[in-house]
Structure formats: C-alpha cells, structure tokens
C-alpha cells in the first residue's frame, strides 16, 4: 500500500527547446509542475496567456460547430460509445491532421455561419407564421388594410371587442351620427372575442364616427399593409417557402460536411493540449535564453524522464527528494483488487501528509457490505454478467470507466455470495414459478438462513460486522501512529478504546437481556467476569486520564478526559448504524417477493398465456427493484465507509497528483513518437 513515493524534478533548458520539452513532458504525462511565485511573472507570461485564450476560444468554437453538425444529421455516437474509449493516434496520423488545422478553422467559421443563418430563418418563419395568423380573419376584405378612403370618403378598418352583429354596430353609430344609414358598413368577421368591421363614411364625419366607435372599444388594424389581405398572405407564404428552401439547401451543405467531423474533433483535442501547454508555460520561470521548470513526479518514472530529457534536449535535470515541508501531490497505487475503490477514497479526500492509504482495508469491506445490502443472487449474477461482458468486449476502455465496472464486478460477486447464503434469487422466484406453473413446492433454500425468518439473528450479525469494521478502523489508527512513531498514542487512541468498547460488548452478551433477544448467552466463569470488568475499568480510566492530554492543567485535563469517555456513545450510534445492512437487505428481498407474488397472481388464472404475463411483470418489476436497490446499496456503503469507518482514523486533505498531460476528449496520442 499504496501511496507512491514522489520526487522533485527541476529542469533547466534552452528557450528554443522549451516547446519541444513541454510537448515531450505532456506526452509522458507523469510530471506535475509546481506553480511559481506570482512576483516572478514576466512579460512572456502575458503572451502565453494570450495564446492560451486563443486556443481556448478555438476549442469552444469548434465544439459549437460540432454541435451544429450534430443537430443537422451527423449521426450521433452509438449507445455504448462511452465504453469504447478513445482512438489512439500515431504520430503520423497526428501530423496529417495537424496539416488540416487551417482548413478546420475556416470550416468551423463556415459551419457556425450556416448554423446561425438556419436559426435566423427559422425565427423569421415563426414571425411570418404569426403574421399570417393575424391576417387570416381579414381575408374577405377586398381592399388593403391600409386603405384610407377616396376623395370624399374615409375608411375605418379595425376591430370592436366581442361578437357583434351589423345591427349592433349600427346602433353604436346611431347614438352619435344623424346619417348613419347612408354609410357603408361591412362586418368582415365575427369571432367570440372580436368583430372586424369596414366602415366607409363621408370625410367630414369621420371624426365623429371614429369617436363613437372608439367609445365602444374600436381599434384600427395593428400593422396595416398596402396589399389586399389575400395577396399579402400569399407573399408571406412564399417568403416562408423560400426560407425553408434555403434552410434545406444549407442543411444539405452541413450534411456534406459531416465527414469533416473527425478533423474537427482532432482540432478540439489539439486546442485543449496547446491550452494546457500554455497554462504550464505561464507558470515557468524564464530568462532571455533559458527556462526553468520545477515539479513533482513518481519516483519510479524519474530515471527514465531524466535520461530522456538529457539525451534528447541536453537539458539540465535534477531529481531530488521533495522538501519535507512541501505539499507534495498524492498518487495511489494498489493491486487489481483494491484499485477500483481508489475513486471512492478520492471522492472523500486524498490522504494527507503522513496518513496511510485506506484503500486496501476499505476495498474488502466495501465489497462485503455492498453485497450484504443488495443480497440477491439473481441481481448479483446480472451485475457480474453485465460488467464482465463490457470489460471483455471493450478493451480500449478509459481506465476510470474500467475501474468503475471492476468495482461493480467485485460487488456483484459479493452480492451473489450473500444472496445464495440467504436463499434469495430474484426474491423467491424459484418457489413461485414452481408452485404457479408446475404445482410443486420446490424452492431455493438458503445456504445459511433467510433474514426474514429470523431478523434478530441477522440484526446481530450486521452489528457484529459493524463492530469488526470499526475495530479495523481503530487498528488503522494505531498503524498510523506506529508509522509516525507516536507509540504512546497507540495506547491512548487505540488500546484503551479496544478495552472499553470490546469489554462492554462482551459484558452485554453475558446479560440475560441479550439472551432473550439473541437466544444464546455467553457464560463466563467468575474469574473471567472479573478480568472483563477490570479491562473495561482500565480502558475507561485510561481514556479519562489521556483524552485531555493536550492541556497542562490537571483539572481541565480530567474534565476533557470525561468528555472523551462520553465519546463512547458515538461508538453506540456507529454500531447501530450498521443495522442498515439488515434493513436494506430486507427491502430488496421483500420487494422482490412482492413482484413475484404479483406476477404469480396475475399469471395463475390465465393458464399457458400466463407465462407471458408473468415474464413481463417479472422483468419490469425486477429491473426497477434492481435499479433502486443498486443506488441504495452504493450510497449507504459509501456512507458506512466515509462516516463510521473513516471517522476512526482518516482525515484526508491531500492534493491529488494531476500531471501535465494531454487531457483530450476524442483521441489518445501514442506516448512514443515515431
């Protein structure tokens, strides 16, 4: 186990080789440069920042262009593509793509322009459609909506609120005007909320007529047009038509560019790499002819890098032990069984200086607890199958994905193990199928016992597992103190607690109350009882005397010691917390049983046809149950590790080792050039 030793590297090279050296280091991907002090910033750094901004913009624009292509017909990635991993590019292929970079930049601009034009036309068409909708009721009108009248007459075209008949409008006019029956009044349309009218009156009476109508809520047409509504409508329609045709043509153009998507993806990767490179350049110490880089790298990589840098570039390289005060980045390395849970440790926090890597002990319990919470052999088989198929089919998978799948593979194996011990295979499907379709009472019995038959026994087992888990945490704490040569703390923070908690648990098992619940009782001879009580007392006394060892004042020290002893209640709640192992396991089993029962009840009266119904309910129900309980098991396993287990010894706070490398999205670059 498990924290990789780090070395400090210092490189001093000539400025004209700076780009090559950085490119080499980026390909190796095993050096993490340390940032320099801000006061050492020089002019070349602003230049580097500008270059970086250029490449960042390039990546963002090309990405946007790729999205435009995606909207109009570049076929999207196949469903399992996230498992497939990145394609590896040789140096030649890389160079060939680099030749096309200029072309790609132009292409990106073109695609973005086309995409924007299509969007604009779509927006315009929406507006035009709205205009047509507004125009629709005026179609019967034989004059333009902007028609104002003749030499002696004036026209009023507009709407009145509410549905009105011609007589009703006449009545409105009649109130104010003497000659209203001589006017030309047409009702153009009548809707439930508005009535469109055309009124032609004598010029001198227009004012009075409009006044009368306005009092009744009259409004002139909002956007009058110089064309007859029918012609206007056909004009609008032809414009929509034209826009659509242009869009189709542009989309065809975009589709013909689909084959260029690969070089655009490469350009995004290229920009990302260059941007990362300039980010490092910004942090370099530079003089007129030389540059100076310092950083950390894993000790085992150091000789190779040192040799290559000297041989290829003639740079001055110095490898040294890191400064003991320095905040050295942390890299974990474990065996195949433990590596998958490193990401879980990382999700909590990387080990701080002087801390042990908890991965190894954690991995064992992680798989164990996960399996116990899911505890269904059928689900375990499914997980194992799914993970192993993916792992064998996609060899080129990204390592983070591979590790996640491996973690679930091991969890699945553990789930199978617990499932068979507890006799749960898709709930009780064997028994239900046997009794529903074959009328027999064959059932899959548990190899150990079924938790639903004897939940108290399972609860005690869960709590026992919890005590073991917590004591392992305490053991890790002691190992930690041992490593840091704090031998007295091994007693203060480890042994005393073992005596107290272990003693109390044993004492509880000798009580008659425990016997009522568990069905057995630990019988100790009187000497044993005395030793046990002595151990508890010793532990308690030890804790009272040493928990407050930070303070000089004895009164304060004892008071703080008593408070430390109060921490024993924390152990009580920690241990009880493991009862979730029983609860979640029961939940999986009971819901599985419910699904089978429903499927059986639905299928039984249907005879042969019932098999189909049974299968449908079975598949659907168990898919949901598996999904929900997978989530539950994952979340609560993490919780038991983070809160109960880590709480005993692990703080974290280390910085993750993030080497300068090419964090590309689409292509992997081969490490060796040529």
């Amino acid at each position, binding site marked *: 186990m498990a924290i990789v030793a780090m070395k400090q590297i210092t490189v001093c090279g000539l400025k004209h080789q700076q780009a090559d050296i950085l490119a080499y280091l980026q390909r190796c991907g095993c050096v993490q440069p340390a940032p320099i002090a801000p006061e050492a910033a020089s002019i070349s750094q602003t230049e580097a920042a500008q270059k970086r901004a250029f490449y960042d913009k390039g990546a963002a624009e090309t990405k946007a262009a790729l999205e435009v292509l995606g909207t109009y017909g570049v076929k999207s990635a196949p469903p399992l593509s996230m498992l497939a991993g990145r394609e590896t590019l040789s140096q030649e292929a890389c160079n060939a793509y680099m030749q096309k970079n200029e072309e790609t930049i132009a292409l990106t601009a073109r695609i973005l322009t086309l995409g924007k034009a299509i969007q604009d036309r779509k927006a315009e068409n929406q507006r035009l459609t709205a205009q047509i909708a507004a125009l629709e009721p005026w179609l019967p009108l034989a004059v333009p909506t902007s028609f104002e009248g003749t030499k002696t007459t004036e026209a009023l075209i507009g709407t009145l609120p509410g549905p009105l008949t011609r007589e009703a409008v006449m009545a409105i006019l009649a109130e104010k005007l003497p000659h209203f029956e001589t006017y030309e009044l047409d009702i153009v349309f009548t809707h439930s909320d508005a009535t469109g009218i055309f009124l032609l009156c004598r010029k001198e009476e227009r004012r009075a007529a409009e006044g009368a109508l306005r009092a009744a809520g009259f409004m002139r047409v909002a956007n009058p047009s110089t064309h007859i509504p029918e012609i206007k409508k056909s004009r609008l329609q032809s414009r929509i038509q034209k826009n659509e045709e242009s869009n189709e043509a542009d989309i065809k153009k975009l589709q013909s560019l689909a084959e260029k998507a690969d070089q655009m993806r490469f350009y995004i990767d290229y920009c990302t790499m260059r941007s990362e490179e300039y980010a490092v350049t910004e942090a370099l110490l530079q003089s007129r002819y030389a540059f100076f880089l310092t950083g950390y790298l894993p000790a085992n990589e150091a000789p190779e890098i040192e040799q290559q840098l000297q041989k290829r570039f003639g740079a001055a390289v110095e490898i040294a032990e890191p400064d003991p005060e320095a905040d050295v980045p942390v890299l974990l390395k474990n065996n195949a069984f433990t590596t998958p849970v490193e990401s*879980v440790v990382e*999700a909590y926090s990387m080990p701080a200086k002087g801390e042990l890597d908890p991965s190894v002990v954690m991995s064992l319990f992680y798989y164990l607890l996960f399996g116990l919470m899911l505890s269904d052999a059928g689900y375990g088989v499914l997980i194992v199958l799914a993970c192993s198929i993916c792992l064998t089919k996609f060899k080129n998978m990204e390592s983070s994905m591979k590790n996640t799948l491996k973690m679930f593979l091991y969890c699945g194996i553990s789930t199978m193990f617990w499932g068979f011990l507890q006799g749960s295979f898709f709930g009780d499907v064997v028994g239900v199928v046997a009794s529903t379709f074959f009328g027999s009472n064959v059932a899959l019995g548990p190899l150990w016992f079924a938790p639903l038959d004897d939940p108290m026994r399972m609860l005690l087992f869960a709590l026992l597992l919890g005590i073991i888990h917590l004591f392992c945490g305490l053991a890790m704490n002691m190992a930690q103190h041992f490593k840091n040569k704090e031998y007295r703390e091994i007693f203060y923070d480890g042994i005393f607690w073992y005596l107290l908690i272990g003693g109390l648990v044993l004492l509880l098992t000798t009580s008659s109350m425990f016997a009522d619940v568990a069905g057995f009782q630990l019988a100790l001879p009187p000497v044993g009882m005395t030793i046990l009580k002595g151990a508890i007392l010793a532990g308690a006394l030890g804790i009272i005397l040493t928990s407050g060892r930070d303070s000089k004042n004895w009164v304060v020290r004892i008071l703080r010691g008593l408070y430390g002893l109060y921490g024993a209640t924390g152990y009580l709640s920690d241990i*009880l917390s493991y*009862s979730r192992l029983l609860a979640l396991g029961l939940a999986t089993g009971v819901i599985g049983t419910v699904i089978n029962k429903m499927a059986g009840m639905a299928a039984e009266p249907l005879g042969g046809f019932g098999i189909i119904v049974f299968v449908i309910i079975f598949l659907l129900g168990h898919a949901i149950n598996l999904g929900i309980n997978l989530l*539950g098991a994952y979340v609560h396993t993490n*919780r038991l590790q983070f809160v109960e287990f880590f709480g005993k010894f692990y703080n974290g706070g280390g910085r993750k080792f993030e080497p300068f490398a090419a964090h590309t999205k689409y292509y992997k670059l081969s490490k060796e050039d040529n």
Partner: protein
Amino acid sequence: MNSFGVALALIGGALSALFACVGSAIGVGRTGQAAAGVISENPSMFTKVLILQLLPGTQGIYGFVVTFMIFINCGIFGGSAEMSLAKGLLYLTACLPMAIIGYFSAIGQAGTAVSSIQLVAKHPEQFGKAMILPAMVETYAIFGLLISLLAIVNIGKLPV
C-alpha cells in the same frame, strides 16, 4: 376471536404506505424541480442530478415494504382473517414509526438533496460528498423501517 383486528392492522399498513409515499412524492417533486433547473444549464449533468433526485424516494419504498409485511401477516393474500383486537392494535402501532418518520425524513432529505444538487451544479467533481449529505437524513428512515419491521415480525409470535 373476531375480524376487527384485521381492520386495525390494515389501517396501520395503509398509514405506512400513505405517509411514507406522500413524503417521498413531495420530496422527489422538490428535488426534481432543482434537478431540471441544473439540466437546463448543463444537460450533461443528467445522470448525477437524477441520482440525487431519487434519494428522497426510498422512504416510499420502505413504507411499501412495511405495508406488504402487514398484508402477509394479516392474511390479505389468503389465509385466516381472524385476528384479536389487541393484535390488530399492535400491528397498527408497529406501523407508526415508518409512517411518521418516513413522511418527515423524506421531506427533510429533499431539502438536503436540493442543496446537494446545487452543489453538484457548481462542483461536479464533489458528487461523492454531495451524495453523502442527504444519505445522513435517510439513516432515520432506515431506523424507522427497522423498528416497524422487527415489531411486525415479532408480534406474530406473541400469544395475544
């Protein structure tokens, strides 16, 4: 012996599913709104916020489990519907922890999950921690489930 006990037991079962599921429905509804807000800004966060959205949904499932245990124990799925009044009342009481804790813990967990969703929106790499915070609240729902289940299983063995 009479069948009034079964009615009481069934009331208990109904309460358990009712309150726990209503709590979960409210909770998942709230987290869903927050999740949709995050997705509107960044669709690639879908899987992460979906997991966080589902966290307050488990109380409903626990309530359902307790209800189902009542069904089995009081003979709804076939068997004798004879149950003493005392036993029925015991079953009803056994359901209360799940019903009440389920309701409140689902809503409490939803509040934490909403905050976690906002946390993940800002710092997607902190997903692990964001998930643990709502899971803390769930502990109490699990205790409720455990108490109800243990009680139901053991009431069957009581000579009342």
